[in-house]
């Protein structure tokens, strides 16, 4: 168990405050409870089955997508629209309680991450942990992110894909 809940890159550990370990069930609860969730998709998501799963999850929950790095193009090639931002730019906006969100409807209250480079995501999650008390962060990568509010554990591919499959259902 221990191996599953220390940060994937162990030295990303920042201090006493650690993410809550979640299963797809709890993750889905968080999405259901959120009023204005946002899905941040990073450039590591390039190919199927991951790409398809990611798109399916976004569609299932009808969550607006922000793409980081050059992930915008990857999704666009699959006819999936998204809002391109640098990961540091979107993090900067998310920490401002006054920001109106990607759709101009108000700041988001839940941000779910997948596919960003581990260490830069960890830094962005740290920013949000400290400076965005108005929102919760959830990571559904196969890596435990201790700087998130809630995170999947470290997993092997097979288990992870299984987790993501579960995220596609209500």
């Amino acid at each position, binding site marked *: 168990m221990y191996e599953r809940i220390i940060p*994937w890159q162990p030295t990303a550990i920042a201090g006493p405050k650690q993410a809550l370990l979640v299963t797809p069930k709890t993750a889905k609860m968080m999405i259901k409870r959120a009023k204005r969730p946002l899905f941040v998709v990073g450039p590591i998501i390039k190919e199927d089955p991951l790409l398809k799963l990611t798109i399916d999850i976004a569609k299932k929950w009808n969550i607006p997508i922000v793409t980081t*790095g050059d992930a915008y193009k990857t999704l666009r090639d699959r006819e999936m629209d998204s809002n391109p931002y640098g990961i*540091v730019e979107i993090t900067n906006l998310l920490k401002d309680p006054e920001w109106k969100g990607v759709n101009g409807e108000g700041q988001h209250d839940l941000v779910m991450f997948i596919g960003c480079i581990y260490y830069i995501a960890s830094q962005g999650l740290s920013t949000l942990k*400290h400076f965005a008390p108005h929102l919760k962060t959830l990571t559904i990568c196969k890596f435990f992110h201790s700087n998130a509010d809630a995170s999947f554990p470290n997993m092997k591919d097979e288990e992870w894909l299984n987790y993501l499959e579960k995220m596609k259902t209500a």
Partner: protein
Amino acid sequence: MVIHVAPKELKNDFWKSKDIKISFGEIIHDGEDSEEKESELEMGPTPKPSVTDLRSWDMKLLDRYEPFYAPFCDMCCLCTYGKCDLTDGKKGACGIDIKAQQARIVLLACCIGAAAHSAHARHLLEHLIEKKGEDFPIDLGMNIEIEAPIIRTVIGIIPKTLGDLREAMDYMEEQNLHLLSACHTGQEGSNIDFESKALHAGLMDNLGKEIGDISQIVALNLPKGDEDAPLVELGMGTINREKPVVLCIGHNVSSGAGILDYVENNALEDNMEVCGICCAAIDISRYNQHAKVVGPISKQLKFIRSGVADVIVVDEQCIRTDVLEEAHKNQAKLIATTDKSCMGLPDMTNEDPDKIVSQLVNNQIEGALILDPDKVGEVATKVALKISKDRKTLKILPEMDEIQEMASECTECGWCTRVCPNSLPMMSAVLEAGKGDFSKMEELNNNDICYSCGRCEQECERDLPIMSMMARIGENKIKEQKFNIRAGRGPIQDVEIRKVGAPIVLGDIPGVIAFVGCTNYPDGASDVARMAEEFLERNYIVVTSGCGAMSIGEYRDEEGKTLYEKYSGDFDAKGLVNVGSCVSNAHIPGACIKIANIFAKKPLEGNFEEIADYILNRVGACGVAWGAYSQKAAAIATGINRWGIPVVLGPHGTKYRRLFLGRTDLEEKWKINDMRNGTVVQGEPAPEHLLYAAENREEATVAVAKLCLRPNDTSKGRQLKLNHYIDLHRKYFGTIPEDVYKFIRVEKDIPITYKKDIKAILDERGWLPKKITSEPSIRDFKDQSSPENFKNKSHPKADAK
């Protein structure tokens, strides 16, 4: 002789309020004749600025580009009250909050970086004064009159001799002390003030580097702004392993120069190899083209493990601190040469060289600390000549079949991958090697995707010598590791600035992009070269230095040419300009300062704010530190930022904890003052950020093109810049960028090729034309000379636009 352009006692406010011009003949000099006796020079408001003198400028920058913090650690352990937990809005026992704590650590990093560069500069300066005398002239040749743009602007003097540089050095050292003291518990409490201090530390870093590079250029006769500086050999495959090999690691040229002198004086050039890693390599190859460049810092552990070097000479900065242990592994001899890194070795500086040689060769001492560069030259050479033959018979690296056998012991624990800074798939590479397929390890070795930090090896529960395995596998293709680099040319010539100043300021040359810094790359070294290539093909001026310059050299285009072979060293469109080592980075802001002075006739002396404001609003320059890892890189970037030049970091750059990001959604942040007519106008987000970190090369490339936009661009220039931005966005994102409307001021700004699409975007956004600012500035009107005065000082061409 130093030309003092203003008496020191007169304080800043005095100059601010009176806008005084001084004519004086009382230049302090010790030479007899001075052509400059009757100089009429104008001193600006802030010669030798104190920690707070440029604070108001910093506040303007920090208001627009607010610090963005990504805490790398939630705690503070700086004093014994701690550790203090700073999460959830909690403050430390001293009262500091998480923002100020992050800013304090950034300031600390900048102070360390500035100290490293300037202690290096101080050492060089005193060493060279000892060799050449304090009256040795600062003469950079016919084409360079503005010899020290940073010193002129910050200190307000025109240094004429090596001895004159001491004044700048003294000032810098004092400032750094004040800045460092602010990091003590219970000093500064505001994150913004910490940032202002960090910007000051960055400026001190820039100053230290300029002192260092000018000293070595003039005293050691390194290339003086020579655009045709020779191509020198680069790569692990260029080293003749049959010969005795001396390897220099670090940044200080003194000991390397000592070695090269000894080799040359004893006609040993053909009998041995002198090579370097990191900036030491760049600087010894500027000194003597017999020296070879092994490569950037990413090669350090691989190359030491390969055992090729008989003698390893370390000086300062970025050397592996376990180099003694590593040297012992393959019976290489270590010589430490500076007070910065003595490595626990006995001080042999005052011993007879032959005695040191004998003690080293006979293993009576485990290495030597020798603080006299000439003695280092003699000892290193003699030791290499003596031990080389025997060492060549040593078996240093495992054979391929041994690698396979070792690799097959892997337990698949996976920790090598987890501790890797880039999470590289080392485990699967080892597993494949265990089955006799080495291609995955080879892939990791290529282009320094694995930069041999050694963390995986430390972690391996089977103690597999992963680095030695990698070094051996790399040797299979060692012959391909032959490249070149244009020797670092130092400053940009005044004549070049005269030629390109207008095209840069008006936007006809789309930008000046500087690839600098270390090799903490997210995905190998070729990303930097590919970015450089992309911008060279697009007519940008590409400047480079240090490890970045070496990474660019390690790449061949489709025709097999290195970019240094393909592009000239001119500071002009399509020029690839290697300025030199880390300290040579000073010439990059230096070139921007010269544009303000030579093209726009802005006086430099004591005039920091006006110059920085000019650069921010008019000079489309952008730095890229794709693999920045060090405190020096933090200081370099922060210093560059204070001059108004944006910098893009790689993803690891977020671990510096702080960026400076603009908010394009907040229009009020982009109000700009038009100094021509004293009006405040709605400007555009150009440049959008001051310190940005991108997640991958694709994002960075597009960001860099955008960060070259400036409020001052003419419509023609704006079209050109936007054209590149849009092209690159289409290439990497597949679309015309949605934010393009923010950068169209008038219809004429629309690039012709994209007219239809952009018009559609403009219509959708309800776009209305804006006034183009004639003289954009973020300074207060009251801080400027009167508009009349301002115009008189401007160049006619600058006025005409």
